[in-house]
């Protein structure tokens, strides 16, 4: 099939970028979206041009590396699907596709379609864990956890940290990302001792990185390739409110 691509090309964070147009040959409907870009890149290299840079690694929808906006939608048109799992059969002959990087102030462009997502790691370092040193754990079955809670916790934990939620949000909020981690641990007994401190620490860092606030448009939920629910944001907000109102002492320790 034949399609036309408009791809964001930007040399580095300092240079301005622009859309370039390409007409890749031999697009096969069974190709994944990234394989279509691979084939195009091989042509570009052969012609002596710099290949289009894009983040990708596992190509099975779980590492969260791939990150591109396709026709205005993070990861493209298919629901619950990362760009690497999107196949060309989702498009038709003659389609015109616009491919851009995540657009958010907190995610500066590194090159072409690659953005800097290290703010997510810095948020994680502010509380996205249970403080338990190796070797100090009790027997795993000494702490029964109801199946419903464990399943709910898992659903939040399925977040792949890709950042599509930020790209979809008009406020560039990363609340869905933060709430997924906060919820995973808030739903489990292991997460209780640090629950307030975690919500405070991670949200403070979220704000500091320049992500915006949540205004409940649900754009993040619609774009999330793992279909993480915004119910988690409600839980995060509750914990955050509770922490600031009733546990001011955690405020200082969260900043340690």
């Amino acid at each position, binding site marked *: 099939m034949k399609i036309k691509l408009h791809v964001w090309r930007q040399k580095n964070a300092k240079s301005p970028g622009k859309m370039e147009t390409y007409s890749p040959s031999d697009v096969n409907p069974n190709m994944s979206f990234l394989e279509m870009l691979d084939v195009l890149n091989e042509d*570009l290299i052969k012609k002596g041009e*710099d*290949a289009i840079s894009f983040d990708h690694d596992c190509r*099975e929808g779980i*590492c969260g*590396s791939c990150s591109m906006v396709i026709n205005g939608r993070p990861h493209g048109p298919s629901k619950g699907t990362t760009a690497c799992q999107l196949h060309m059969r989702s498009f038709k002959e003659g389609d015109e596709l616009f491919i851009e990087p995540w657009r958010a102030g907190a995610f500066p462009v590194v090159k072409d379609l690659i953005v*800097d997502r290290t703010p997510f790691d810095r948020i994680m370092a502010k509380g996205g864990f249970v403080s*338990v040193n190796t070797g100090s754990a009790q027997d795993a079955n000494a702490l029964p956890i109801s199946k419903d809670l464990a399943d709910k916790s898992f659903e939040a934990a399925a977040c792949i940290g890709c950042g599509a939620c930020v790209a979809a949000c008009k406020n560039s909020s990363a609340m869905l990302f933060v709430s997924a981690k906060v919820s995973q641990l808030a739903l489990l007994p292991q997460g209780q001792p640090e629950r307030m401190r975690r919500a405070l620490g991670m949200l403070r860092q979220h704000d500091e990185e320049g992500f915006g606030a949540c205004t409940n448009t649900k754009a993040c939920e619609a774009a999330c390739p793992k279909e993480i629910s915004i119910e988690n944001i409600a839980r995060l907000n509750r914990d955050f409110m509770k922490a600031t109102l009733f546990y001011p002492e955690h405020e200082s320790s969260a900043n340690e």
Partner: protein
Amino acid sequence: MKLESKVPSGPLAEKWSKHKFDVKLINPANKRKYSVIVVGTGLAGASAAATMAELGYKVTAFCYQDSPRRAHSIAAQGGINAAKNYQGDGDSVHRLFYDTIKGGDFRAREANVYRLAQVSTDIIDQSVAQGVPFARDYGGLLANRSFGGSQVSRTFYARGQTGQQLLLGAYSALSRQIGMGTVEMHGKTEMLDLVIVNGKARGIITRNLETGEIKRWAADAVVLATGGYGNVFYLSTNAIGCNVTATYRAYKKGAGFANPCFTQIHPTCIPVSGDHQSKLTLMSESLRNDGRVWAPKKKGDKRPPADIPEEERDYFLEVKYPSYGNLAPRDIASRAAKEACDDGRGVGESGLGVYLDFADAIKRLGEDKVRERYGNLFDMYQKITDENPYKMPMRIYPAVHYTMGGLWVDYNLMSTISGLHVIGEANFSDHGSNRLGASALMQGLADGYFVLPNTIGNYFATAKPEKTSIDAPEFIQAENEVKERIQKFMSINGTKTPAEFHKELGHIMWEKCGMARDKAGLESAISKIQALKKDFWSNLKVTGTAEGLNQTLERAGRVADFLEFGELMCRDALIREESCGGHFRVEHQEEGEAKRDDANFCHVAVWEYQGEDKVPLRHKEELTFETLQLSTRSYK
């Protein structure tokens, strides 16, 4: 090259606790004086970095991804084994040990495997304490399922995303240490060489993948946790970025490379769909708990599966291996699928596929139960193939998945280079010539959480690494070599892209050094690879610049190392004149089953680099079995 396994004396079950008592300790206040570099932050690297930092060592960690959370451990689907015996079905440390040694076809070191089985239970405790949401029963206790090569249910899981949840657990422990400033983390940074000073591993040279900056790093010890080399086959279930560079560079600096030909071909992957294919996707082994593998009995039977009546289907695993059935180990199941296809009974357009059928399970359990167990895998299958596995059987075919070979390590997980430790898939130690399902996560985390943090202190206390700095001549020289190499890649300006060379190499490896190997094929592969390597260095084309982000340049460096490494694999496969586990030499078989030669090959083959274009030296570590009897591996 001296290969001292340093296995402690005494009864097998007491070796590890005795060793932990015998090793020299570093007092807590002195630990912060020792620094360690960890390369790779998947399960093994992240757990090791976090744990060593908790102990008080100064850790600097590196990964090529933008975040440790993206290492390919994340893609492990089915589960993690542990000898908890929560199901009361007769499991024990000894049984896990026995299954692993037998599964590996008696080509692993007893003491290491026993230790692995011992610490397996601690991993589950640790992960649960971190908040890893494993599957549970309604009573709130942990659930288990079965995996290939065992007759007990000892596999813990989190739907089909166990690797993800365990990695995120290790990543959270690592994040905690990063937040406390005890681990310095460098993402988008690739190790391009190892630096040795006075015979000890003392640092690395890296390239920052965003800026292109080449940098020197020094420490008192270096840990490689850089995963396996399955991508030497071009198509594998590994992530696109997985590579052999770190371990191969260490090999070129004197570290022995053990059993490079031991690779695992996983039986249940989605078949190749065309020439554009960039990677293969695994369908978890756990599916074989409920899915039945079959091929048509008639050659060239092109009817849709639903139209093939029961009596015309060959459920070949159930027929050939009645006591393990569809849960026969990976190497055996892969070969059986290949046989059916070679026999002209393969399915799908290419004829390279067999069915994995859930119709019986759906009838027995209902579609909802099947969806709860495997929903994400079924969805993934449907996205890739556009076929609905609830309605028609999956098509599967074997694909390269894991590499049992790796850098040789002793009982302390130290390589033949003093101070260079190797953990996880990057070392050779625990899986012999075939790894059992759900054992990779176990080994990565055992090495990282529980073994290395105990043994590295002994290295510091006994070797007492002297002061060094990144301005030592060895560092400068290594940096210059790395820069020259990059310059070379940029300046050849030929006509073929790195990916083209990679594809050609992969084709040779899969045809000649894949599921079935023979002398003539391996010899021809060696000369073909040598010719391809020559072509690479005169005809490579890399566009863009050496500065800044350049994925074509990254690929070129990785392919250059794969080219040399592929030859080493073929040499190893050529000399090992026996069949064992995943290494199947067609000359050595009995009724289609692998035929081991314990008299001549009951050893680990360890290769020592001898210089550019020279044949490397092959050393042996003899394997002695004190507890188990060498026996023919049978799953019938």
